[in-house]
């Protein structure tokens, strides 16, 4: 078999047994791998009412047909029902772990059950083995990775949880290859609920390539294209993702103090330009990635990776904090403890507003940088106010009677682009299958950055079609599996060609778009069964009722209702957001 390794293992931690899961050629072609195949397999194994932290829930680690092949292919996806949102969720991470899983001879690993005591799994030559992890339980993600590598081999790639996953914080991350994170949606809590501390993968099984000559040509072509592109060949390398700080702030949509303002006066001091001048030691790259957007940084006392744009915002402008060192060290803490930086920071912003309004008696104040690291640590261990912060913003705000102060969609916190400044991004947040996430349809690309074309950010015209299209392309990229940043340089036809040379299958652009649509609709079906409908495809009331008074997004509100019906029509869903029978028939669902 070309591209795929042809082996997916299901491992039951309760009975410590494993079996191979048969996946037919037709299913592979319909869902590719990664997110798509993961969601397909998950939907067949688990009901939409399953408790995400129950023993019986499945947690699926998936690679795709392109994993371990051409550039940016070291990534992997983790799929399950999210304990944060209750929706279907896939969480993506870079590094080498995806390529290592394929090197170990498998396309994916389905984990069910709960181990009687802490374990880690090792994968080698297509076999999965469980090992005692009692010695690693309680350790942070860095010590865990080093400790397991000492046992399993220094070339082994390790994905693990930290204390936050062990205490089942519902936004705990899975960390791999030092500081790469499957951050969003609380997949780390599911590992914790299974007493699964880590997975170690390694090996040198090659991925079979259908067209070796075409592969070489494609590799050389990608090198040229990515190198020549000003975003992938220069900006991301030199300035990382935080180059966005000044750009988004200049557009008056850099969420400040829990989305109450769109301009952060101290943005310059937390920008990618400032990081490059001060904390940056060197850039870092994932497997076969010439871009190297990662930032290896050093503060006076510590070193680590980050901060990325979303994290700079979450611990910076969102909290009124301009101390770049404090922001960076809070990022390091999240990496070590295994927490999603976006939900952590956003929850703190919600807590600060709750505190300011008097709804919550705890004293958390805007701009209080000195306590940031303690708040993060306390959240991971669920101690003191950390036990409350571990609820995430939706549950915290509801508990104190002000649900509208949680800046979330379907329970997932919205990241660093205020939707009042970009109508397409607003629709993207509202209709995202995993909640308030920017990665389903990154409408910031056309609405702010001008990629691949420039669109008027305040117009709603045509946005429904484009959001659906972007969602479908993203589903393909997450299922192939590749890095989204490649999309700044190439489009769908390049992905089609990459899949062709690797798998030998005669994919067309149209077929890939149908695959993307199939995946998105399957996810929607799961969410519908879990009780999500039109009423959940919305945003917090602040975005409909409160205008900014300053900045270039002032006096603007989200006009979701102008787009939502069109979006459902484009998708072939009814007015309640349920896929129509003819849509299901077209997609073979």
């Amino acid at each position: 078999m070309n591209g795929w390794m042809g082996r997916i293992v299901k491992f039951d931690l309760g009975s410590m047994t494993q079996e191979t899961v048969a996946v037919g050629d037709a299913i592979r072609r319909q869902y590719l791998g990664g997110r798509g195949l993961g969601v397909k397999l998950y939907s067949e194994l688990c009901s939409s009412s399953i408790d995400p932290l129950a023993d019986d829930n499945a947690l699926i680690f998936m690679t795709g047909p392109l994993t371990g092949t051409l550039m940016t292919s070291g990534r992997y996806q983790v799929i399950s029902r999210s304990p944060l949102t209750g929706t279907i969720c896939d969480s993506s991470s870079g590094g080498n772990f995806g390529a290592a899983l394929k090197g170990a001879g498998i396309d994916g690993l389905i984990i069910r059950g709960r181990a009687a005591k802490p374990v880690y799994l090792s994968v080698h030559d297509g076999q999965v083995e469980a090992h005692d992890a009692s010695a690693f339980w309680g350790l942070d993600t860095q010590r865990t990775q080093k400790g397991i590598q000492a046992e399993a081999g220094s070339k082994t790639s390790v994905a693990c949880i930290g204390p936050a996953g062990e205490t089942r914080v519902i936004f705990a991350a899975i960390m791999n290859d030092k500081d790469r994170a499957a951050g969003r949606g609380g997949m780390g809590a599911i590992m914790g609920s299974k007493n699964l501390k880590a997975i170690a993968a390694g090996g040198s099984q090659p991925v079979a390539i259908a067209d070796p000559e075409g592969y070489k040509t494609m590799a050389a072509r990608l090198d040229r294209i990515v190198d020549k592109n000003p975003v992938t060949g220069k900006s991301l390398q030199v300035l990382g993702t935080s180059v966005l700080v000044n750009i988004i702030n200049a557009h008056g949509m850099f969420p400040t103090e829990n989305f109450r303002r769109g301009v952060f006066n101290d943005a310059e001091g937390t920008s990618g330009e400032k990081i490059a001048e001060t904390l940056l030691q060197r850039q870092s790259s994932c497997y076969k990635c010439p871009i190297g957007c990662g930032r290896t940084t050093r503060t006076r006392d510590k070193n680590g990776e980050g901060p990325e744009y979303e994290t700079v915002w979450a611990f910076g402008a969102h909290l009124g904090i301009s101390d770049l060192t404090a922001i960076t060290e809070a990022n390091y803490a999240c990496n070590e403890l295994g927490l999603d930086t976006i939900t952590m920071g956003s929850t703190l912003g919600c807590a600060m507003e709750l505190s300011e309004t008097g709804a919550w008696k705890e004293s958390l104040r805007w701009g209080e940088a000195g306590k940031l690291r303690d708040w993060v640590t306390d959240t991971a261990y669920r101690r003191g106010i950390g036990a409350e912060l571990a609820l995430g913003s939706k549950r915290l705000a509801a508990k104190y009677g002000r649900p509208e102060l949680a800046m979330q969609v379907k329970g997932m916190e919205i990241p660093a682009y205020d939707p009042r400044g970009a109508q397409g991004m607003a629709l993207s947040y509202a209709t995202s299958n995993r909640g308030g996430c920017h990665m389903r349809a990154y409408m910031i690309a056309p609405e702010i950055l001008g990629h691949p074309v420039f669109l008027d950010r305040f117009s709603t015209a045509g946005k429904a079609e484009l959001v659906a299209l972007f969602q479908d392309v993203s589903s393909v990229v997450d299922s192939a599996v590749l890095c989204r940043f490649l999309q700044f340089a190439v489009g769908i036809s390049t992905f089609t060609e990459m899949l062709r040379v690797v798998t030998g299958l005669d994919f067309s652009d149209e077929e890939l778009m149908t695959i993307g649509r199939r995946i998105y609709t399957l996810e929607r079906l799961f969410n519908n069964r879990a009780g999500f409908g039109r009423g959940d495809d919305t945003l917090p009331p602040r975005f409909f009722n409160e205008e900014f008074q300053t900045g270039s997004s002032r006096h603007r509100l989200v006009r979701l209702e102008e787009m939502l019906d069109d979006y459902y029509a484009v998708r072939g869903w009814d007015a309640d957001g349920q896929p129509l029978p003819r849509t299901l028939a077209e997609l073979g669902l």
Partner: protein
Amino acid sequence: MASRCRERWRSWGFNLAGKIAVKFYGLMRLRLRTAAIEISGDGLTIMTLLGLAEEKTGQSFLDELLDKDKGLLTGTIILVNGENIRLGQGLQTRVEAGDSVALFSPAGGG
């Protein structure tokens, strides 16, 4: 960008001579080692302003913003008082004394 108010003032004979603020972001800032300069002028097109900015800084930077045909690169963002010139007259958009022009070379992230 020409405001009606300013045009009216000029038609009444007021002298609006002053400075246009030009701010550099991203790769240009690292190259030029400066965050902002001021250019004297009024009613200049962006294209003219960029040429004057190169003269004043003594370094070329237009390759970060424009293609070889002197058109905007895909992804270049130029804001005049927060408004993208692509929604106006592009490089022919006129700026006035007192305006603030922000220059961003193509960037991405997420």
